């Protein structure tokens, strides 16, 4: 039994699939890193006193959340041609940009929600002590809000990680793409896709379990 598994197509595909997994993780982490920066900016804009800035933020969020990520990445990779924007975008860049833009819209709402969730009494206490609005945000609201962002950000990580599988359409060498390349040659479709699933789960399940524990610990 063990023998058959060890020399089976399940194991043979692994080195190939691991390369894909590395690419998947790279795209996800880079995308979320930039996505957090962009998302924080959009989220802060969403909280702005200026109606104009708020509107820009809302338009961004609605456009991104209202269109499929598959369309977004095709748009970035095939739609934004060199003729149009002056630079050529390779598959990896397109994938990272797509995750960035997409995750930023959701992260913006996470940021806004976390700031809103801090009780009004906190900012009132700060203001009543004479702290400026900025200092109240900086020393009182943000540190508490940031803690509440961690679980939903972890959740966004899992979502974005799975979203990267759609990028096989632009032939970026992520996990699903590598799986397809592999079974196109070996015709071991079932075995390969099963391994692909297991590799995704190897990351998503521990992340989810850890998040659940963290959520209890942070008491948010």
């Amino acid at each position, binding site marked *: 039994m063990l023998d058959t598994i060890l020399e089976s197509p399940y194991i043979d595909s692994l080195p190939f699939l691991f390369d894909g997994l590395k690419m998947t993780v790279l795209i996800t982490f880079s995308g979320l890193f930039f996505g957090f920066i962009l998302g924080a900016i959009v989220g802060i804009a969403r909280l702005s006193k200026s109606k104009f800035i708020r509107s820009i933020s809302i338009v961004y969020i609605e456009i991104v959340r209202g269109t499929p990520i598959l369309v977004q990445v095709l748009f970035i990779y095939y739609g934004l041609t060199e003729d149009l924007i002056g630079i050529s975008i390779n598959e990896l860049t397109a994938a990272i940009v797509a995750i960035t833009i997409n995750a930023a819209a959701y992260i913006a709402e996470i940021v806004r929600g976390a700031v809103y969730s801090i009780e009004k009494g*906190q900012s009132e206490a700060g*203001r*009543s*002590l*004479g*702290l400026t609005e900025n200092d109240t945000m900086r020393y009182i609201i943000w540190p*508490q809000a940031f803690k509440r962002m961690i679980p939903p950000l972890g959740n966004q990580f899992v979502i974005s990680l799975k979203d990267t599988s759609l990028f096989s359409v632009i032939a970026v060498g992520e996990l699903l793409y590598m799986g397809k390349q592999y079974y196109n040659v070996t015709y071991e479709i079932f075995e390969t896709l099963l391994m692909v699933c297991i590799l995704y789960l190897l990351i998503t399940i521990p992340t989810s379990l850890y998040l659940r524990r963290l959520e209890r610990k942070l008491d948010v």
Partner: protein
Amino acid sequence: MITVKDLHKSFGDLEVLKGINAEVKEQEVVCVIGPSGSGKSTFLRCLNLLEDITSGHVYINGEDLSDPTTDINKLRAEVGMVFQHFNLFPHRTVLENITLAPKKVKGLSASEANDIGIALLKKVGLSEKADDYPDSLSGGQKQRVAIARALAMNPKVMLFDEPTSALDPELVGEVLQVMKDLAQEGMTMIVVTHEMGFAREMGDRVIFMDEGSIQEEGEPNQIFGDPQNERTQAFLSKIL
């Protein structure tokens, strides 16, 4: 030191304060009583502009709060406020709760602010809690920290909005004691409270509010012993 002239406050169509006139002198302790929803909190919150004023004037040491050139943050620093639900900063230790504003608003160094914080914790009897987080304190301890936090800015007047209403009965006394000490030291205080014993003992004056106006005001003995206004009589007969 505080003069309120024809103060009106509306939330949308709802007029909550309907022309308040009041005067609080230095070192005076004024207690505000009245049924729930009568506008007591709103009145107090207008005194440090946590609510903006719809019309009328509030003067603190001669400065007009409704004048847009008044430096609101500076003024708030001189008006301490204690909330019903404490509103301590949960991510900061007890001592840090107290030292944050002196450092950020007054620009004190960490050691200067710590000295003030430690002295105030001693005053409210919580020296040993300096490095604990608010979550680990009882309600009474939280409220004493909140009082120390407000005092750290060295305010000229302290506003208390039902400081003991959220406390278990056995914890009310320790907070009232801190407030009594403060009153005896000559702090100017405006206290919204349901603790009639405190109002009677410590109040120089009692204001009875109902439906957004001051219905009656006078010395505690008169208000509690010989109320003139029908509503005051009705309110007191219900709670005493």
